[in-house]
């Protein structure tokens, strides 16, 4: 079936009940979304479907006809990181980094609906995502940093 991922159409040869996570990783060879639990408890698999952050480990592709999937690869590359990714780099917001792609997608969804979230807003939005290394403080700062940049850009009357 057809899947739209990061703006491109892909023809995917997978059973319709295959969770999106495995299609992204196995078929499309995208690394961002990760297997952490397969149970919707840890958020390492978080991607965007349209404007919603979802657990890709529990989203069968049969539900995704005509919908847009965005993974962290869709936000930028190592050479040209997007603003949120850059914020994580600037804050050095990672230890092992395994949870980070999921955090970025969850934060991306937050910033799309709330451009200037409070610290409490950020914490509530990231609640579904676990970090075992204890990088929470930096993750929050990275999101604040990205938000600050955004609101600064918007205030400057340009934005992107």
């Amino acid at each position, binding site marked *: 079936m057809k899947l739209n991922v990061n703006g491109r159409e892909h023809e995917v040869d997978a059973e*319709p*009940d*295959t*969770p999106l996570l495995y299609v992204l990783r196995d078929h499309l060879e995208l690394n961002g979304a990760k297997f952490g639990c*397969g*149970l*919707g*408890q840890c958020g390492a698999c978080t991607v965007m*479907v*349209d404007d*919603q*952050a*979802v*657990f890709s480990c*529990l*989203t*069968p592709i*049969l*539900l995704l006809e005509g919908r847009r999937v965005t993974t962290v690869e869709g936000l930028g590359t190592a050479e040209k990181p997007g603003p949120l990714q850059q914020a994580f780099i600037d804050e050095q917001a990672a230890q092992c980094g395994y949870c980070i792609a999921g955090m970025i997608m969850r934060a991306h969804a937050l910033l799309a609906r709330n451009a200037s979230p409070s610290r*409490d807003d950020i914490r509530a939005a990231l*609640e*579904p995502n676990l970090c075992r290394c204890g990088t929470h403080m930096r993750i929050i700062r990275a999101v604040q940093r990205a938000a600050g940049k955004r609101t600064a850009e918007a205030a400057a009357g340009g934005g992107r």
Partner: protein
Amino acid sequence: MRKTLLAVIAVVVIVGAGIAALVWRPAIDRVNRPAAGSFDAALIKRGGELAAIGNCRSCHTAPGGREFAGGLGVPTPFGTIYSTNITPDEKTGIGAWSEAAFRRALREGVDRGGRHLYPAFPYDHFTLASDDTIKALYAFVMTREPVAATAPANTVPFPLNLRPLLAGWKLLFLRKGPFEKDPGQSEEWNRGAYLVNGLGHCGACHTPRNFLGAENKHQAFAGGETEGWTAYALDAASPAPVAWDKAALAFYLRNGWQGDHGVARGPMSEVTDNLAAVPMADVQAIATYMASVAGPHRASNTPSPRRERQGAGGPGAAIYAAACATCHDAGRAPPYGGIDLSLSTGPSGPTARNAINVILGGLPAEDEQRRPIMPGFAGVLNDRQMADLLAYVRARFSDKPPWTDVEKQIRDARTEQSRVHPGPAPEPARGSPGEKEARQ
């Protein structure tokens, strides 16, 4: 002519005086806040247990707010009523209330200053509270942490926001206490009836209401709704696939889940959270009474064979198999893993609303307690897919006719984003008083 006029005036004055007499309530003098140390520790503890049964904290605490400081908006058909600050703060709370003022509020729905209170505060139940109960509750609230906080203004439109009108409501619907025992029933039954109909105010959710917002006493426990959730019928019309008996009820109320019935969600999960810390005897009493409400007394209840309809297919079947079965058909011991939906009341409910709420919002992970976690599917399923899934669940896991109006309920649920509270009560820590009892 003059006589008639005088007579009319007299009638108006007398009726008016009568109405005024009904409506007007005197203010009770302020007192100095009693010192916390002046209350007996055991009384405070008992008050805490009773407050848990009365669910005081859940209404009188705003999300993220300080305990008992009020500010929770309760949506009613007449507007949103905000709960008040019942911490012993002297300016913004009830710190200046005497026990008599407190008693009057619970029994008659009148605050210290003489204002009538909206029955969103269920004094039509609390009126049954005994003097001893009120004394203990008073000791408890007066020894909480005082917090300076003022609730937002209610959004009840004119003229319903005229408080004196509430006197009329009370005239019609408030049957003042105290509680009267039924001599033909056991002590435990009576205690249960006292708690359920009094502090527990179970009927406030589980009994249907009339157009003036009062409970239909003739249909006690025939089912109601609150904040976007169906509070199931608890009488003989209960839709539960396996009938409730006393043991199941006691376990469920205590633990927030029960093997043959599923898991408490929404506002009920707050109730079971509270009951986790209440003496088992009280929970048993409540269970005894509610078991009699449910139907003829049963010594035990073997669950019916797993109710599954063959041939329940359709597009929902594929969705269920792909998104739900991993957890819900895994056979993991409750309350973790996905519950066995053939035993859950949700698929058999009068409307799809509860199922929709849970599917959309899941049981979110929060506050680091051992609880079932279920992801929400709001972002994953669109309305049509949700409706397909619901149709499948209804057909496979219940023997009831298909739900109607499902699309509208889905849209309502999405916009209201019904607060899906934390899941079942956390398991008590090892060695804590609740631990052993939870296993009974």
